[in-house]
Structures are given as structure tokens and as C-alpha cells.
């Protein structure tokens, strides 16, 4: 639901970086999105296309890398896969676990084509 706000933030981060690097065009954007971060990838793609329409990131390919949820059990110390925030530790039944992966919402890197003055 807040994918539009996320898309606008992504475009802003990308445009700032592109300007700093003297990019003529941004060809791709690599994101890391955790599976517990409540972000719909398809909605984010749709919103990104709209948000990027007028700038240097227009038409850039969006690569979304899913980061699986994982949690550390405070009772038995196991690190296990999490499908929800409140999954029970399969080894000892303790809950909730400390979330150590799956909440990421990051821009990793972008591919740019720089402009060179002739």
C-alpha cells in the first residue's frame, strides 16, 4: 500500500546518485527487499514505473532480490527460517524470535551509463 512512497524514495536516491556520478542514463536498479517487510514486489514495480517517468531512471530495469526471513531463537540459539514475525522456534517452541533477516528495504546498486563530454 505504501509502495508509491517507497518508489518515490527509490527514485530520489537513484537520481541523487546518478547526478553525482554524471550518469546520462540509469540502466538497472538492484533492490533488496525482505520477505517480512510487507512490500508487494509487483505493486512496487508498477509504482516505480510511474515515479521514474520523468527522470534519469525512466525505463531502468528493476531487479528485486528477495531476502528470506530468518530469526534467532533467544532460548536455544538456533537461527531458523521465518515465514511470519511470530513463528515459533521449530527446535524448542520459543517465540517470538529475534528477526535477523527479512526486514530489508535497500537500494544495493545501480547500473549507469555515464556521459562523457566530447
Amino acid at each position: 500500500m505504501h509502495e508509491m512512497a517507497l518508489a518515490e524514495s527509490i527514485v530520489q536516491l537513484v537520481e541523487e546518485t546518478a547526478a553525482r556520478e554524471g550518469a546520462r542514463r540509469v540502466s538497472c536498479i538492484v533492490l533488496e527487499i525482505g520477505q517480512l517487510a510487507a512490500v508487494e514486489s509487483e505493486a512496487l514495480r508498477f509504482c516505480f514505473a510511474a515515479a521514474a517517468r520523468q527522470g534519469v531512471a525512466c525505463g531502468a530495469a528493476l531487479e528485486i532480490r528477495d531476502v528470506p526471513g530468518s530469526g534467532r531463537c533467544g532460548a536455544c540459539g538456533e537461527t531458523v527460517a521465518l515465514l511470519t514475525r511470530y513463528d515459533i522456534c521449530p527446535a524448542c517452541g520459543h517465540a517470538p524470535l529475534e528477526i535477523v533477516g527479512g526486514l530489508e528495504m535497500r537500494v544495493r546498486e545501480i547500473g549507469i551509463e555515464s556521459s562523457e563530454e566530447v
Partner: protein
Amino acid sequence: MCTVCGCASGETTIEGGMPVHSHDHAHEHGGHAHAHAPGIGAARMVQIEQDILSRNDAYAQANRQHFDERGIFALNLVSSPGSGKTTLLCKTIEALKARLAIAVVEGDQQTANDAERIRATGVPALQINTGKGCHLDAHMVGHAVEHLRPAEGSLFFIENVGNLVCPAAFNLGEHHKVVIFSVTEGEDKPLKYPDMFAAADVMLLNKCDLLPYLEFDADLAEANARRVNPDLTIFRVSATRGDGLAAWLRWIEAGLETQRARHAETVDQLKARIAALERQLAER
């Protein structure tokens, strides 16, 4: 979007038709300062490694600093629509306004109805309409703080847009998120919308006066909330009847007292530092 301060060029307005703020910097829309000849394009990857919400988080940090430097205690009230947030806020204000200075930011997609309800209690309130936006962000709240200028040592409420999903992700600089969950909803709401219950420090189970008429298991609702967040402080209340509000009010006053004491300590430390520097100068 404004690239200097991040103002969206969208539909967010602060009450009175004002845009979110007046820009004293020029927006650069379209066109570059100098043209690039289409030369040999060099393609490469550039690392960014930044959180998507890093800009919001920076605004939130600035808001938090503003609150802390003035001993202000800020609470962000979140819930689904219709949980009784505004009624609860009005009753809370009525009970505390004689003793405390209070200011309120109201977030809704449309109308200034809620800010008007708050102002009827006699405290300043500012409505932010987010248009199509589903949450308040820290930048909007920063501008609302500029307009409202909450007093030193005061209580600052942010009533977020009624939505259990998006406001969880957006830190506004508040000291605590307070989630309001009413007994006319389902007991499993904390499991359906775990992010908000995980982000909150306090949960108010509201409309408890209706429990005799409903098949709602309040203990199960609390257990579900604690399954997501075992550290939640929970109060059972009825905003309309006033049941249970005393404990919630005590919690607020204790929080404000801690915040004021921390502020006073900082001020005392600064005064002592100034006095020491003055002595050093006088001894020269």
C-alpha cells in the same frame, strides 16, 4: 518531487490550503544546467547500499532531536479506521489539558474534521491531508511541528492515518507508537497485521464497555498481541465511558516526566559547562 527537501509535488496539504511548506529554494524541474553531447557512454555499476527509507529516517531523527531538546514527549497513535482514536485523544486531552500543554497533528486523507474535534477541546491542532497517501511521513510532521511550535515540556500527539499497514514502516520521530485496537475488530488482528503490533510499545484495547454484548475474547486478543510483541504495555479502556483511562493517563504523565527530567539534566550540564568556561576565561 523537490530534490532539495524531498517535498512531494503531490497532494499533501496542511490545513488552510497551504502546501506542506513554502520553498525558499528553487525547484529544478527539467533541463540540465549544461548539455551533454552523446559521446562514448561508459556503463558501470555504482554501489548505493542505502535503506529506501533513509531520507524519512533522517527527518524522523531531526524531529526526535527537536522534541528531546525541548523536553517534549511525542506519541504516534496508529490503528485501523474506526477504532476510536480521535475520541480517545479528545478524552485524554480533556483529562490532562489543565495540567499539561498539548498539541496535536492530525493525519487523514481528506477533511479537517478531526483537527476541528481536537480544537474544540481547546488545544492547538493541525490537520495534514495526505490526499491519496496512506500514512504520515516524518517530513510532513516536521513541517507541522514548525507550524504548531509545541511548548517546552509539552505533550505532542500525532494521530496517524487510520491504517494498520503503512504507518508501521514510517518512523516520525515519536518516542512511542501507541496502537489502538478495538473490541469490535477480530481477536486475530495482531496476527493479521503483525508489523504494527511489533512496532508499537503500547496497545490500548478500546471500547471495552461493549464486551458484554460481543463474542470477543479480550484475553485471546492480548495473547495474540503479545505473541507478536511480548514487551507490549497493554491497557484495557473505554474512551467513551472513561473506564481504564486513569492507568493510560498515568503512563503518559510518567513518560513526560522522564522526558522533562532528561531535558533538565542536559540543560543543567550545559549551564555547568558554561560556568566552567567562564571561570577559565576570568582566570586568564
